[in-house]
């Protein structure tokens, strides 16, 4: 009988209207490596963030060694025996390697208010050496090391104090083969010393090879927990997807034919470290879906098409106009619209009102003889806000008060106002409720009918299948599969090319 070290009971997490984690009850055994898998947005990272004190729990509880956990920060979680290596950069610039590793736990080296820095550096160096990372100097400022080295330092930070449970959240994608081998050695060592590892990864072969059991989450809920040696990758994919295509909101036509006229031509586009040698054509009236895992490079591709990426090589051409797009102002001037996945930081200005957000890219058109007339600006904003049915108290309402869906409507209203011809929509329905989703899909269909062209970048497979005329799947910065619109197209087909 295996001993349960950690269990969750009916854990829930709400972000506004989004129910990110739904009643998840799970058990983790002492000394096991437990895989946690699911599609993007299935709630894996949120579940582990609650366990680690990064996010608060909406309801439910975690019980560690029989005691309920009440942690409000990573340090508190560490003190209770829980640690996490996060998906993004988890180390802090400006601090030395040693300071990063012991951040929040300096008390060990404090004599009164004096910190024994030399001892901290010595101990950190010994730690790094014991992990085989003797090329890293404990007293050097961490900015001097590569992303991979910083990730390895983070792993040392998360494991050196021998926590009971270590979560490794989608870390392998940041590591080279050598780095991965170092990570798996650490995981093996943790297991041998009777620690529990929660391993999150999209690489199913990796999950199958290095875990004892696997739990599958879908839409925030637990689907099933299986023994790793009793399943294969296909079975895991089926569990991850496990539902019929829900087509209530999507296009019902399956013709998929589009005009021959190319409105945008992307040739040999590359951004170092993100994607390489991407070429494709976008036709008039086409909805082109681009899908893949979060880190496959598709989000950066959207930015690059819009002229928003630095170090870009290759070309983005508008064949009709015989123009090349090299910057954002040029893209906007020539009818390209873009909505970012990171809506609050890259798409919308939270600290100004709806009217100003909508008129922002159109001021050059609205300014007659360089003079802006408030009345005209407001009329313009009002008409486009009404067209998108933005739920608001008025166009002077500040955007930060709006829900995610209404913020997205404001973003789209802005580009409709500009009368753009090509829409690059990155994750257009991310974190949006069903009603607004339906509105956005209806708008996309309407734009298509009017001859506008859309590149829809999405992590939602159903959305890609339901809305696209053609789907390009990216994996590790390259195209890995092309699908044309068809009733027969399944989620499994797309997943097979993603993972």
């Amino acid at each position: 009988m295996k001993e349960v070290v950690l269990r969750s009971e009916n854990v829930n997490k709400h972000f506004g209207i989004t129910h990110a984690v739904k009643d998840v009850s799970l058990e983790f055994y002492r000394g096991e490596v437990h895989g946690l898998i699911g599609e993007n947005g299935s709630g894996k990272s949120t579940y582990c963030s609650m366990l680690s004190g990064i996010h608060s729990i909406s309801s439910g509880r975690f019980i560690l060694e029989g005691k309920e956990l009440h942690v409000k920060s990573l340090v508190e979680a560490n003190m209770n025996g829980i640690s996490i290596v996060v998906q993004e950069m988890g180390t802090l610039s400006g601090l030395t390697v040693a300071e990063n590793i012991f951040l929040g736990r300096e008390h060990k080296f404090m004599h009164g208010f004096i910190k024994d820095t030399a001892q901290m550096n010595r101990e950190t160096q010994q730690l790094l050496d014991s992990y085989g990372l003797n090329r890293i100097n404990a007293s050097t400022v961490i900015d001097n090391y590569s992303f991979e080295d910083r990730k390895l330092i983070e792993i040392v930070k998360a494991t050196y104090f021998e926590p009971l449970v270590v979560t490794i959240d989608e870390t392998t994608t940041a590591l080279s083969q050598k780095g991965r081998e170092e990570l798996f050695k650490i995981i093996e060592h943790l297991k041998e010393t009777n620690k529990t590892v929660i391993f999150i990864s999209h690489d199913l072969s990796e999950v199958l090879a290095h875990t004892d059991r696997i739990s599958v989450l879908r839409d925030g809920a637990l689907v099933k927990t299986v023994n790793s040696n009793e399943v294969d990758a296909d079975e895991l994919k089926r569990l991850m997807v496990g539902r019929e295509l829900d087509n209530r909101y999507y296009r019902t036509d399956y013709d998929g034919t589009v005009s021959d006229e190319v409105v945008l031509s992307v040739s040999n586009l590359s951004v170092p470290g993100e994607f390489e040698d991407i070429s494709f054509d976008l036709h008039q009236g086409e909805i082109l879906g681009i899908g893949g895992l979060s880190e496959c490079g598709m989000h950066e591709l959207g930015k690059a098409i819009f002229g928003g990426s630095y170090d870009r090589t290759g070309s983005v051409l508008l064949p009709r106009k015989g123009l090349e797009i090299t910057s954002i102002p040029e893209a906007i001037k020539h009818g390209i619209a873009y909505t970012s996945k990171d809506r609050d930081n890259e798409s919308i200005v939270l600290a100004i009102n709806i009217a100003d957000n909508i008129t922002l890219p159109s001021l050059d058109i609205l300014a007659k003889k360089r003079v802006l007339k408030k009345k005209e600006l407001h009329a313009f904003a009002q008409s486009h806000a009404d067209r998108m049915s933005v739920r608001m108290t008025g166009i002077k309402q500040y955007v930060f008060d709006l829900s995610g869906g209404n913020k997205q409507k404001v973003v789209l209203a802005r580009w409709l106002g500009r009368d753009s011809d090509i829409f690059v929509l990155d994750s257009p329905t991310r974190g949006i409720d069903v009603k607004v989703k339906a509105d956005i899909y209806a708008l996309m269909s309407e734009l298509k009918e009017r001859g506008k062209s859309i590149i829809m970048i999405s992590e939602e497979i159903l959305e890609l299948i339901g809305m696209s005329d053609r789907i390009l799947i990216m994996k590790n910065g390259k195209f890995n599969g092309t699908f044309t619109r068809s009733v027969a197209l399944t989620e499994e087909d797309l997943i097979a090319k993603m993972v």
Partner: protein
Amino acid sequence: MNETISRFKRSKYFGYALLFGLALFFWAFFKILSPHNFGTSKLMANYLQTSIQYAVGGCGFYFIVVMGLFDMSIGANIVLSSLVGVLLSRQFGYYGLIFGCLLCGTLIGSFNGFLYTRLRIPSMIVTVGLMLVLESVAAYVVKLDPAGFPGKLTDPNILAFNHAPWNYIVAVSAFLLMAFILRFTKLGTYFNAIGSNEFVAKAMGINVEKYKFIGFVLLHFFVGIMALLTVSYGKGMLAVTGMESMGRNFKPLMGTFFGVAFKKYGMPVSAIVIGEFIITLIFNGLVALNVPTTINDFVTGAVLLIIVTLTNRGARGSVVK
């Protein structure tokens, strides 16, 4: 071989080599152009004495600048703390001068920090308001001088800090104190952590508001020390109004820029001190060449920008605030 070079390039020795190289370059440049009016050993000692007072203020500034904060009231604090020091020196001699400057400076810092953390208004706005308040208070304080010499250090027996060795002793003590705080207390780590990513710093259990408050207190404690040197060098202080005190903010801030730019080499204190010396060298070199003040300011500012840009250039597309 490549690994050794790359290790050297990220070590503090590389940082020192860069800074001393720059100092040597500017010294040689102006020495060639103005061999008699610039760079003699006596003049170099003068430049050093001038630069250390700014470097003390620059050290204080560093505590909040690394957290992404700013303080416009430094100059007003220098004026007010100096005047309070002078006033108290009438009765208590050195004790009055020293504690007047340091205590007044620190109290103002506590007040700034308190207002910033409580009001939750950007530091730039809070401290502009405070600058105006402090200038007005300083104008009032000069009227309190019983000796009838507003702001003047009249007693020749309390001028030890306007020359060696005491000015050096005070300044070096301040530099050592800053180095100690950064290296041997949690404060340095936490200030950097907050500046790097406030959200992560909070998640690591750091009380961000508390450490921002402490940052302001430390800044103004160092400003108090700078006030002690400034009032001693000038043998007094004039009260100014109408934001005129703001001009005193920028020389210490230039040193801070060097500190931030060379932070990655793990030697911010040395970078502030040597950086201020380089700025003073350039300034005096241009004076030796009879360059008008406006052009002098232009060249000094441009050189500062070039040095900081070259040593601390962000990645293309990175957000720089």
